[in-house]
């Protein structure tokens, strides 16, 4: 198994990092998060249409760059660092992964190129965002593919051209393709803690859909693992940004005639945070390498998701606390990352759920 990034992977990171620093500064994040749509179509076209960032993990035959979980993770990490606002996670990571793992070959051929080049904005609709074991039951499909039911939360469904819906029918769960404007589809935007990631309630009332693949328990767990690994990367990018800016702040802010970073209470907290981040990042990068090689711990993605979520929240709490009152203001940017951290902590399973999932994989159910 690979243990370090290759030259090409480091190059990809440099390119993505530069593009996102340019296209997704905090001012743009603030502007977009206040809109209903939540993203800038021109930037989307540049990053996904021109630069191909939605297809890094898609095979070349389907119009992608032919990378894997490592490349997807690199992009996710840089997106998380800058709090990129846009349906990249929903479309490339969630829907792209569902297509790659569960769709029939002919459906992949038809649907993946659009996702890979950003011309289709897709999302994955699940009726449970806590635990793969809870998916299915709230949305049902008839034999001819008509969908009925509710997903209480779906990421970026309000801008999706294509909704991939996991629904129960006869036998195992199925993956269904639904067009964004389909009749009987009601997408109702929800008020959210983290306005940089939009959520909607999606209700299906006899919506015409197309069955494009089976979703066995194993398939669903594979999808979950890949999404969680990418999400862990996104979180580590955000954690690293918060950590760096917080440490810088302690060197610039003076109280009692000294930079506050000279006080051990703060230095020790920063040292502990560095350790927590280093450990979580190592697990996160490892999870992608495990997915790409098929080797390593089966629970690697859950380890990564649990550790990254805890580390991001630690960085977010420290980011606010070490800035004192300034950190609690709306004007200061820290809360934007704090809220992304809180949202990511619980999306696709809290740390506790992932720790239990990992123990079940290691030792069997309790």
């Amino acid at each position, binding site marked *: 198994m690979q243990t370090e990034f290759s030259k090409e992977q480091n190059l990809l990171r440099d390119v993505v990092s530069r593009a996102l620093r340019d296209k997704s500064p905090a001012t743009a994040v603030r502007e977009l998060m206040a809109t209903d749509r939540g993203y800038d179509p021109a930037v989307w076209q540049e990053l996904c249409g021109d630069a191909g960032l939605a297809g890094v993990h898609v095979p070349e035959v389907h119009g992608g760059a032919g990378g894997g979980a490592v490349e997807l993770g690199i992009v996710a990490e840089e997106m998380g660092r800058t709090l990129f606002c846009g349906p990249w996670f929903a479309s490339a990571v969630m829907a792209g992964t569902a297509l790659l793992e569960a769709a029939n070959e002919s459906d992949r051929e038809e649907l993946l190129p659009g996702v890979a080049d950003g011309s289709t904005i897709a999302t994955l609709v699940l009726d449970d965002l806590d635990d793969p074991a809870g998916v299915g039951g709230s949305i049902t499909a008839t034999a001819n593919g008509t969908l009925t039911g509710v997903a209480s939360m779906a990421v970026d469904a309000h801008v999706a051209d294509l909704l991939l819906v996991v629904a129960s029918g006869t036998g195992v769960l199925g993956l269904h393709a639904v067009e964004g404007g389909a009749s009987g589809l009601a997408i109702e935007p929800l008020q959210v803690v983290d306005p940089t990631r939009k959520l909607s309630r999606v209700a299906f009332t006899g919506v015409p859909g197309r069955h494009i693949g089976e979703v066995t328990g194993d398939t669903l767990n594979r999808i979950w693992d890949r999404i969680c690994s990418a999400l862990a990367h996104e979180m580590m990018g955000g954690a690293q940004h918060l950590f760096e800016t917080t*440490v810088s702040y*302690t*060197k610039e802010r003076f109280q009692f005639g000294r930079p506050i970073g000279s006080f051990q209470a703060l*230095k020790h907290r920063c040292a502990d945070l560095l350790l927590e981040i280093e450990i979580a*990042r*190592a697990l996160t990068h490892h999870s992608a390498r495990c997915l790409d090689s098929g080797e390593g711990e089966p629970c690697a993605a859950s*380890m990564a998701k649990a550790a990254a979520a805890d580390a991001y929240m630690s960085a977010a709490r420290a980011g606010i606390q070490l800035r004192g009152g300034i950190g609690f203001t709306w004007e200061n940017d820290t809360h934007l990352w704090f809220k992304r951290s809180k949202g990511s902590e619980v999306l696709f399973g809290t740390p506790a759920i992932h720790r239990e999932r990992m123990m079940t994989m290691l030792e069997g159910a309790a």
Partner: protein
Amino acid sequence: MTPDRIRQEVSAWLDANWRIDRPLIEWREILLEGGWAAPHWPEEWYGRGFTLDQTAVVAEVFRERDAVPAAQVGPRGLASETILACGSDDQKRRFLRPILTGEHTWCQLFSEPGSGSDLAGLSTRAEMKNGKWIVNGQKVWNTSAHHADFGLLVARTDWDVPKHQGISYFLLDMRQAGVEARPLRQMNGHQSFNEVFMTNAVVPPEDLIGGEGNGWHVAKTTLSFERRGFSRRVRGSSIDGPKQGPIYEEYEEELRIAAEPYTWYPQREGRVDLVLPRARETGAINDPATRQEIAKLICLYTGARLASDGAEARRKAGTTEIIPAGSIGKLAASVIARQASVVHTMISGADAMLSGPDSAADGIIAEVLVSVPAISIAGGTDEIQRNIISERVLGMPKGFRADQGPFRDIKRNA
């Protein structure tokens, strides 16, 4: 020289020289003459100028052949490396050979009751009287001092200069009336260390190393070797399994004495290896709260291992690594050990009140619970590691210091 070439040379030399019926010291004299005792040392001092990687190949061949290596275990490794780096030719001539042959054992006389984390604040006094250094003071945490022939001693020779500048470094003969080593009992019941009392102990002027007032520099040299593991070779260097032959009896005894202080070290690291077997055996593996804590431990342990492997790979690839892997690794080891201790307690429940043969795993778990507190203290406390990380990695500013100016004027422990 390539690894293959080294293997060939060492093998040929062992074919001609290695015999199990020689007395240990006699074999080591041959080893020294042959130049295989310390291949990473310079040619004029028993070595071949090998890199550490090349030296590892030599050690590997010795292990494969069950051939006894030079005595490098325990604090004597720190002594030889320090003398080699900072000593005079006369000191190298007198001290290096008996260290390699195993005739002399050494100890480190650095920490003091009043000077722990702040080593440079030491107050053991060395004064020149009638052409000799006269030493008075007390040291503590001195592994192997009770049987050592010599000690690596730092003492203050000038009280009127800033603290780092008034220290000198001596090679102290431990076998004299003015030196007394007393075993120190730890909270876990073991006696791995000593206190050493020096009352008008004598050091001849030729046993000052590195020059008067230059002791801090020499001490940092010793500490850098300590961090690189030169005192802990003992655990990796034993020949596997009991071997028949007179030389092995002598060698095993040497290793046993050197390893004795470290028997409980695996316990202070938390015995992560025993967590899952114990959890299964007791049924605690089915308790949701315990499962959460075990999972946290596995994440910490696995992540820290991956992070350190990554740092090591980057070091080998020659990437400049700004992260001092030592400090971060040490802090990680503390966090892991504490979490392991929490988990072992949850698994044992009320049985955690018992120790020794009455308790789980023949006392090993009880020993974990009362040994883990050592890991965040020994070799630099967690708090000191956090200072190092925050200042050297994160570039955070140093705090206010109250120990500038002549040492005489600095407040210190009574």
